[in-house]
């Protein structure tokens, strides 16, 4: 009885929120609708109701009682997803008190779950959302330990439309950073990694020995071995930050040997081994601006990495990395535009922010395209969404209209007119 009661309560609350969020169906008419899954529709209509897309088509009439938005030809896309951010776990990069991005502890690494550190009230979430980003992966900082820990997937809506799916993937380094952490040589990295996997299997078979203090020595603590089991069992993706072509090949071999669900991150020299990545069915998250030979492991970095990987049949997702990962993940659409300016077809660039990440992160049933039955993450843009300076005029997340106000727009208004002092009180 008690269980039933709780469920009923949850249901009622959820319904109330849904009702508050969207009293009537919404119909966006006369849009240039980029469905991602079924082409682009001129004079397109997108209808959603109760947070879910109910109709998409050419010139469809708005249903009776719907709240109608005339897009006047503007571009309409699914809400975008940035597959590599620090959203919610970092407010100001250099103010460590505001960061929950890494745990530098001898006690654990792989076991680190960043989700409890996520702050839904972070100012960066609306700042990101108003650039059309409705979903994001938030990932731990890489670099302090071989395994950095487990990231989370977030839906970035306001209030009840904000949600967190923790433990979405395990993040790790391979290459120069990892070798610095693990004995100074790549050979040592692979030795430790294989031993960690062996230890995790040993843990799986000998849990009681660990409980009783009879376990043999392991390279990682118990917490980490336990955390690695979903990875070894192919349930949790292992996101590997790797750049050098030969390192990528080694990761591909590792994935095959252990039957891991690997996602490559960065992969600056991915294009050199694109066919092998494609054959292994391994997706890649990349930054299209990464073209500097900034390390000896990424001498082959090129603006055409995205285009070449895509052409080879690799599923790519576009993210904002490097010096901007901490705060400017909002620029993902612009970065996709840069990939498009360097050979990636525009449709593929948009897919790299929608359909592809939806598939990579296992949420394609709910998100990633403008199709009936999907969550209504829908964005109307003031220009080509891939253009420098593009911004949404409307953002809906799970059908709920999102405010376009942010801490930054409030500051702008405060200083709009210097000769007529702004209202400085709280608002």
């Amino acid at each position: 009885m008690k269980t039933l009661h709780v469920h009923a309560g949850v249901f009622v609350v959820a319904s109330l929120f849904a009702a508050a969020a969207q009293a009537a169906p919404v119909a966006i008419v006369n849009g240039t609708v980029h469905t991602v899954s079924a082409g682009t529709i001129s004079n397109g209509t997108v209808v959603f109701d109760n947070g879910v897309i109910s109709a998409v088509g050419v010139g469809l009439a708005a249903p009776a009682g719907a709240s109608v938005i005339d897009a006047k030809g503007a571009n309409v896309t699914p809400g975008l997803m940035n597959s590599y951010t620090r959203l919610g776990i970092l407010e100001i990069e250099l103010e460590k008190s505001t960061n929950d991005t890494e745990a530098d502890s001898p006690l654990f690494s792989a076991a680190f779950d960043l989700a409890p550190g996520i702050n839904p009230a972070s100012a960066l979430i609306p700042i990101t959302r108003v650039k059309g980003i409705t979903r994001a992966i938030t990932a731990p900082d890489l670099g302090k330990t071989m395994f950095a820990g487990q990231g989370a997937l977030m839906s970035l809506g306001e209030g009840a439309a904000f949600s967190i799916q923790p433990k979405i993937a395990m993040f790790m380094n391979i290459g120069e950073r990892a070798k610095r952490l693990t004995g100074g040589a790549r050979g040592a990295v692979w030795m430790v990694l294989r031993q960690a996997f062996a230890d995790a299997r040993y843990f799986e078979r000998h849990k009681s020995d660990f409980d009783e203090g009879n376990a043999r020595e392991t390279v990682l603590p118990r917490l980490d071995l336990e955390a690695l089991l979903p990875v070894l069992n192919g349930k949790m993706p292992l996101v590997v930050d790797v750049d050098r072509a030969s390192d990528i090949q080694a990761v591909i071999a590792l994935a095959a040997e252990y039957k891991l669900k690997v996602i490559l991150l960065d992969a600056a020299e991915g294009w050199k081994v694109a066919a092998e990545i494609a054959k292994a069915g391994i997706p890649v998250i990349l930054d299209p601006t990464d073209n500097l030979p900034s390390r000896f492991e990424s001498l082959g970095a090129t603006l055409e990495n995205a285009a070449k990987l895509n052409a080879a049949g690799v599923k790519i997702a576009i993210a904002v990395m490097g010096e901007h990962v901490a705060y400017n993940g909002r620029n993902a659409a612009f970065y996709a535009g840069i990939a498009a300016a360097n050979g990636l077809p525009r449709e593929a660039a948009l897919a790299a922010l929608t359909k592809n990440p939806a598939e990579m992160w296992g949420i394609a049933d709910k998100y990633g395209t403008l199709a009936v039955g999907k969550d209504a993450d829908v964005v109307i843009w003031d220009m080509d969404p891939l253009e420098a300076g593009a911004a949404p005029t409307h953002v809906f997340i799970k059908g709920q209209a999102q405010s376009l106000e942010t801490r930054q727009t409030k500051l702008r208004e405060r200083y709009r007119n210097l000769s007529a002092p702004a209202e400085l009180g709280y608002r």
Partner: protein
Amino acid sequence: MRIHILATVSVLALAAAAPATAQFAGSAAGKRLADIITDPYPSTYTPRPSVLTAIVGATAHTGTGATIHNATVVMNAGKIVSVTEGGAAPAGAVVIDGKGKFVTPGLIDAHSHMGVGPSPSVPGVEGTNEATDPNTAEVWDEHSIWPQDPQFARALAGGVTAMEILPGSANLFGGRSVILKNVWSRSVQGMKFPGAKYGLKMACGENPIRVYGEKNRTPATRMANFAGYRAAWIKALEYQYEWDQFEAKRKKNDATAKPPKRDLELDTLAAALRGDILVQMHCYRADEMMQVIDMSKEFGYKVTQFHHAVEAYKVRDVLAKEGICASMWSDWFGFKMESLDGIEENIALMHDAGACAVVHSDSAVGIQRLNLDAAKALAAGRRMGLKISDGEAIKWNTLNPAKSLAIDDRTGSLEPGKMADVVIWSANPLSVYSHAEKVFIDGALTYDYDDPAKQYRSDFEVGYINKEDVR
């Protein structure tokens, strides 16, 4: 050529040197100490060969804020000859069909660390910050620059023809900056912008505090930053005074004239006080900029430009009135406390206030698309209702940075007589889909998107990076 350090008395000094009756003159060392060579590592840059060229039919954003449709841009002997609407190409000119394309002046980055913070980012070539003392005004960052940094060529592909290379911001006084033309050379001198003044890199705020405070050294607070600047300026005034005294004696052939003890740090600071070196100051917060302006008046120097200036919008009226440029990003913010209040409208608001708005990169990635940073700032400004033309936005990439580096009399706009630093774009450079097709430096075709033979590679890339692999 030997030019005495004291510009105000340099003519007198050269005239006075001839009689050479003063005591120091009997000693070769004395003469070297007295007759300071102010340009000891002079520019050896020479324009590459060029031909009479006319770009016909393109849309020209001239850099002055104007846009000319169906423009004819004529270059000859390294200079802009004319920019007209619908003009005919002169006889004998190489004619480039510009229909559907855009032309701008070469882009200028007022804030780069290429060469001092190179790729690959390894200790063997890193040279941005001499973070061993809060005042290292004595260092010249041209001595750190690695001309074979592959980043230069990537910036060229983004249409960048000149840039100021600055020391980092670890120190209150980081040292001298230098302005380069973006050309391949065996030497730094071969890249130096002829006749450009040096800059003095100074830094406000958190960085010096973080670097030194964490070592339990001064400065550990903003108040110590100011104490550090002011103490140094006082020493520089004293130094200048000693040299002035010496020059007065020397002029009178006073046998007791003895050159003051030479100090590299004070050479630079005194030159900054005199205006012979431009003060380029890293400063994020509005309130700090206001205090720096007061300090400049306390010691009688001019701040040429605030760099980063994410809060310039809060004091845009003051910056306009003081004639101080601000070098800004379109949207960087929040990476540290002093950058928290950055807004996307910063550049547009500076422009709207009539102030000198500059788009800068501070990044070897960002420098490859300064035009798109202008596009983002423009879009943000328009969204808040500001009226700004495309041509005015390009000014943030061209004439304004040239002004902020005091090279605007020679480059930064498509005007007759100026250096023919010119970019042809495949489309409006404010579109993400555009790219620089051809880049001319002093009239010489230096980069061609469609011709790998005209895409220079640094020595470092030889054998590591094949040119067909890289864009």
